[in-house]
């Protein structure tokens, strides 16, 4: 009981003009960042009659989820009117194999590069990293030709392959840097015990890779979910991802634009990365930072 009297924690700061300034800045900035999200949600919950009156900031007078169900199942993306749900499931079908394959490729590459001395491996890694900086437009047309010649252009396989190919630099780098931080003695001990390339990878290295696997998954899921240009170019009409469908919904103007449906569709498209962001917290930042420091 007496302990409660003792001062605890930091000494309370006086509220000086400087402190007030700090909070004013932060709150203003926070409002700027939250404003578009607020407007999106509010607009998506209003009927069109209310939207036409203006005041995009106000709470809906007659809240309705009509726009959400319309956006999900009956909004028009060009000629077809099956909503953005089509794009959602396409994105899921693209996402799962792309994420799994690109992570496997990155993990194997990173492991081979950091523990095994393969001739020319560093040159390979250098070129791969430089490739990460080259604008995609430089590769797109020849890639389309190659995929057309092999007959897989405009298919699920095609878009998955493209995601794996262009995910290679970041994924390889991510795993290589992580494995470079593991003690080499561990690897040497496993070698002395007679472990080969694959058995060491599966039994020693992979079980220690959980943190980097989580980071890689966050990075790839958000990256691939948010992709637009590859989906547009390689997926084909049947497999267009959600981002492309969203763009089609917003820009297919037949009659008056249904802003509430547009915003509901936008929220739906943003939902998956937002959930990942809010759930993963600091891991998200770690992923960007790790993927950012190229080399």
């Amino acid at each position, binding site marked *: 009981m007496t302990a409660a009297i003792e001062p605890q924690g*930091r000494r309370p*700061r006086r509220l000086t003009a400087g*402190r007030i300034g700090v909070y004013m*800045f*932060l709150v203003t900035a*926070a409002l700027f*960042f*939250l404003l*578009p999200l607020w*407007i*999106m949600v509010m*607009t998506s919950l209003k009927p069109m009659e209310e*939207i036409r009156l*203006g*005041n*995009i*900031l106000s709470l809906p007078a007659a809240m309705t989820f009509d726009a959400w169900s319309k956006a999900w199942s009956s909004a028009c993306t060009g000629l077809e009117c099956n909503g953005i749900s089509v794009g959602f499931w396409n994105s899921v079908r693209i996402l799962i194999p792309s994420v799994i394959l690109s992570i496997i*490729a990155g993990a194997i*590459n990173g492991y*081979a*590069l950091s523990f095994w*001395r*393969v001739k020319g491996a560093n040159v*390979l890694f250098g070129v791969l990293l430089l*490739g990460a900086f*080259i*604008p995609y*437009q*430089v*590769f*797109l*047309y*020849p890639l389309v*030709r*190659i995929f057309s010649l092999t007959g897989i252009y405009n298919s699920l396989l095609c878009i998955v392959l493209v995601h794996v190919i262009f995910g*290679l630099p970041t994924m390889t780098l991510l795993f290589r840097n992580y494995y470079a931080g593991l003690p080499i003695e561990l690897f040497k001990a496993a*070698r002395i015990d007679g472990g080969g*390339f694959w058995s060491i990878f599966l039994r020693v290295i992979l079980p220690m890779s959980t943190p980097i696997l989580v980071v890689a998954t966050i990075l790839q899921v958000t990256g691939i*979910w*948010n992709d*637009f240009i590859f989906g547009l*170019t390689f997926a084909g009409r049947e497999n267009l991802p959600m*981002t492309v469908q*969203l*763009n089609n919904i917003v820009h297919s103007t037949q009659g008056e634009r249904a802003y509430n449906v547009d*915003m509901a569709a*936008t929220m739906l*498209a*943003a939902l998956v*990365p*937002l959930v990942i*962001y*809010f759930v993963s917290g600091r891991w998200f*930042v770690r992923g*960007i*930072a790790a993927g*950012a*420091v*190229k*080399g």
Partner: protein
Amino acid sequence: MATLPIRASSIGAADTGARRRIRARLPAAFALLPTALIVLVVYIGCMIWTVRLSFTSSTLLPKFDWVGMAQYNRLFLNDRFLTSAENIVIFGVLFISGCLIIGFLMAVFIDQNVRGEGLFRTVFLYPYSMSFVVTGVAWQWFLNPGLGLQKLVRDMGFESFTFDWLVNQKMAIYTIVIAGLWHGAGLTMAILLAGLRGVDADLWKAAKVDGIPTWRVYTSVILPLLRPMVITATVLLATGVVKLYDLVVAMTLGGPGIATEVPAKFVMDHLFERNNIALGTAAATIMLITVVIVLAPWVYARYVRPQGRPA
């Protein structure tokens, strides 16, 4: 006397050991093979192919004739391309400097022992998790003069308030900058905040003893220390600038007119819609050269110069 056999046997062991080591490395080389193929075919092969196509007269289908610099001459007389180039410079300068300044300010203010730090961090960074399409659509709605911000302020009593940048030829590119800042500033904040947290606390004590004002410490002491983080953030933002495409497509479709065209969109349009492969690949080649020129000093500073020193 006894040393001889031992030496002999150890040489023998080393010999077979070396051979065994090489054989053990085979699966590693094998595992890297697919990546090597991809690098060779996609990263190098497709790049050369694109550059080669830019010297042809290809339109709908690729041809392999040789027209020299003809496409480049056309490109630099093309209004759409010149506008694209100008736009990407405007966007690049404002976006990168804006993200760095706003991001640095946010990081510094968050670093003042504020309450609700986690909340502010989360709010500043969340736009980065969303796609450019979502960002573009959201800002297009917010900034449309008919029902968006302009109407809101007018309804509040400021009848003559005008904010029509989105549909104004001269100003539209700046709305793309605003949306870009909203999307990317939080990332810079996160990277710089991590840097600020790594600054030695003794440095602050020393500055306090010397009576140096806080803002001076930040500009003259902390900022130079954050150099690596600033460079990382800049490189990351710069790659975003080169890729600028989805945001423009979602927000303005390059309009009004051609006011917000950008090089990536120019290439995409000419390759896949306007059936002018040669002109599209010529523009892609110009993008490639620009990236190399911008990137070269950084690669040199980071990889070539420090050679010989332990990393």
